[in-house]
């Protein structure tokens, strides 16, 4: 009977961790979207978005990676990191794709959340 209680407790913990992971990714994504919005707003108003990009990168490295590192594959976080690091060079070379790159970061973050959702087609 003791083993059954341990097993049921473990299953409950696994479910709790799964729900916590989803909530954690969702919350971190919301903050990341906020930083991206700030970068885009500054860029579109003709100002210098470099401080916002720096804030985005600091948030990503110090908080986002630490919060999601336990649940998300390193490769996906690596792709996001590469996209963020491309923003400053793109801005400096006055590249037309700056906005598209910001949208790509947002989409990659969204995909991280979506891939964690236990949907039928993803399970099978």
């Amino acid at each position: 009977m003791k083993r059954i209680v341990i097993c049921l407790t473990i299953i409950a913990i696994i479910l709790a961790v799964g729900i916590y992971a989803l909530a954690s990714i969702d919350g971190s994504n919301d903050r990341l979207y906020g930083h991206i919005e700030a970068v885009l707003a500054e860029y579109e108003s003709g100002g210098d978005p470099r401080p916002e990009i720096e804030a985005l990168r600091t948030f990503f490295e110090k908080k986002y990676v630490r919060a999601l590192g336990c649940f998300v594959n390193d490769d996906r976080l690596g792709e996001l990191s590469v996209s963020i690091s491309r923003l400053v060079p793109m801005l400096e070379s006055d590249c037309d794709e700056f906005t598209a790159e910001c949208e790509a970061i947002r989409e990659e973050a969204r995909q991280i959340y979506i891939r964690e959702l236990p949907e039928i087609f993803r399970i099978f």
Partner: protein
Amino acid sequence: MLTVFIRGIILYALVIFSVRLMGKRQIGDLSPAELVVTILISNIATLSIEDVSVPLFTGVIPILTLVCLDVLASYVCLGSRKIRHMISGKPRIVISNGVIDQSELRALRYTVDDLMSSLRTQGIFDISEVQYAVVETTGAVSAYLKADCLPLTPKTLASPEAASDPPQVIISDGDFIKAAEDRLGLSESEVIKELKRKHLEVGDVFLCTADSSGKLNITEKRKGKRK
């Protein structure tokens, strides 16, 4: 490198915990379900140790899930014979009264060579010495020798046994086993009558075996919880 080392330590502790949680049954011969779980755990643990790009949680969670399912399945098996047979299979009699059941061997996809090899590991080289043999759920063969081939004991010296199959289980944990009843030629009503004489119902019986002469050996269910 250090990451792999630390992950190795964590997964070592987890695998030890998992095997302990699965219980002592794991240490002996493995049933098909246990074998599958053991192989899967070792495989997942290896991947999680080697691949540092994969979060440790993605290795820990499937290991714990498999172990929990194994323990829960064994708990469900305790209460239901049907589920027990579905998950672990059931022992199959391949030799009865000294006669090989060829159709059973074919159904098990067991060759005569396999049978002979299993018997030889038990020191039986002549199949004609075997009275009764069962292929267990683990795939091992258990053999019972004919009376004239059994080792001499004070009991057999005093009254030599006639050749007969060993006693068979006819009630297991309150459930009647129809197959054993058919083999022994003992009807359910006869057994119930015998139980009634002892003021017992079928549900009160933990284990009841019967030999070929129809003699019952009854173990009652123990009431109350184990301390």
